[in-house]
């Protein structure tokens, strides 16, 4: 799985950090999401999919492994 995060779309709601703080964090200056790891290990996949689904700005896209 590879995560594509569109920071321009991000509205800093913090939903992704709440869902998986090991994968997502927020910039100090404006709370915009940052990726701690763009290719998280499988243990995180369920949480990352949920984070993508609940992102209010649809800023998280996932490229799943085939």
């Amino acid at each position: 799985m590879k995560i594509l995060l569109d920071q321009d779309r991000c509205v800093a709601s913090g939903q992704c950090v709440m869902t998986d703080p090991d994968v997502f964090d927020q910039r100090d200056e404006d709370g915009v999401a940052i990726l701690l790891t763009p290719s998280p290990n499988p243990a995180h996949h369920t949480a990352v999919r949920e984070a993508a689904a609940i992102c209010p700005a649809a800023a998280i896209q996932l490229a799943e492994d085939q």
Partner: protein
Amino acid sequence: MVIDTALSLPAARDAKCPFDPPPELRKLQDQAPLVRVRIWDGSTPWLVTRHADQRQLLTDPRLSADPTKPGYPLQVERRAVSGRGGIGFIMMDDPEHNRLRRMVTAPFAIKRVEALRPGIQRIVDDLIDRMLAGPKPADLVEAFALPVPSLVICQLLGVPYEDHALFQSHSRNLISRSSTPEVRGASFEALHDYLSSLLATKDADGDLLSQLAERVGNGELSRGDAAGIGVLLLVAGHETTANMISLGTLALLENPDQLALLRDSDDPKLVASAVEELLRYLTITHTGRRRVALADIEIAGTTVRAGEGVILPNDIGNRDPGQFPDPDRLDVTRDAGRHLAFGFGVHQCLGQPLARVELQVVYSTLYRRIPTLHRTAELADIPFKHDGGVYGVHELPVSW
């Protein structure tokens, strides 16, 4: 299928079920995904009844949140307030909305808010101590539900709490549907002027208003826009959470099995899940998210034309059985994670991490410290905010 309806908004709740959305709205949800309704000015915007459609449309950039655009379904009559601009960026579209929003999002980041938790716990404990030492019965709204979020948002913004009587009463006028346009306008002006004069006194005090004042100083932001953002954060920061505390407590008192689950658990996950479920179940933002179409949009098989108003009532979205099984049951153990109580899309509540921590601290503390808490008025005699832009109770007499 599209049906036209004679239903006028706001619809009335069933007095016997004060926690449930108006039954007529629920009926429409059963019947069709998209209906026409009539609002106060005689216009007939669309009503989107179901959770999935509401969620999708709230992320659609072809719907505008700007109430000055023709066709926007206004909640109440609106008068332009001269020279002061609007109430912050919630009534703007991107890219300007996002530019302004990002100026105030930093203090609401998850980690920053988590760091406030011990301070919020102290505020909650102090207020409970004071209430227990005071007379019985007490009004939970006045003694506890309003002061908790007011103290917290004052600290965060850098507003003196001593002024709470002033900003609380103007906030009430501003969001009440029964205020005349004149009263609403005067209260908005008063709050705007209050924030504007506070901004003028700020000098790198480390609070959010100081940061806005600095942006005014370097030309990124006009003083008027800064004051508008201040009004938005101050009003949204205390009214909403205060209503969730008092109405949530009343809902739990009416559901003693759920209250017991919450009170007897040490699991922060259960507390967090109870907060989400109460947000879903109560959806105090009960006047619907409102938008106007900027282009023709296909919604549930029907074309909504550019310039037509669209109302997305998230209170019935959160009771959609297609999304939440047995939706009228308060169940603090359910996964309510996809509720729309904070809205959805780019305008989703920016203060939600703070609201969550405040509610988690309150719900995990109040009923443990006062296990005998009960209401002293009949449910039928408790004044609900049927006319409120935000739902709740005006007062909640309790004893212990």
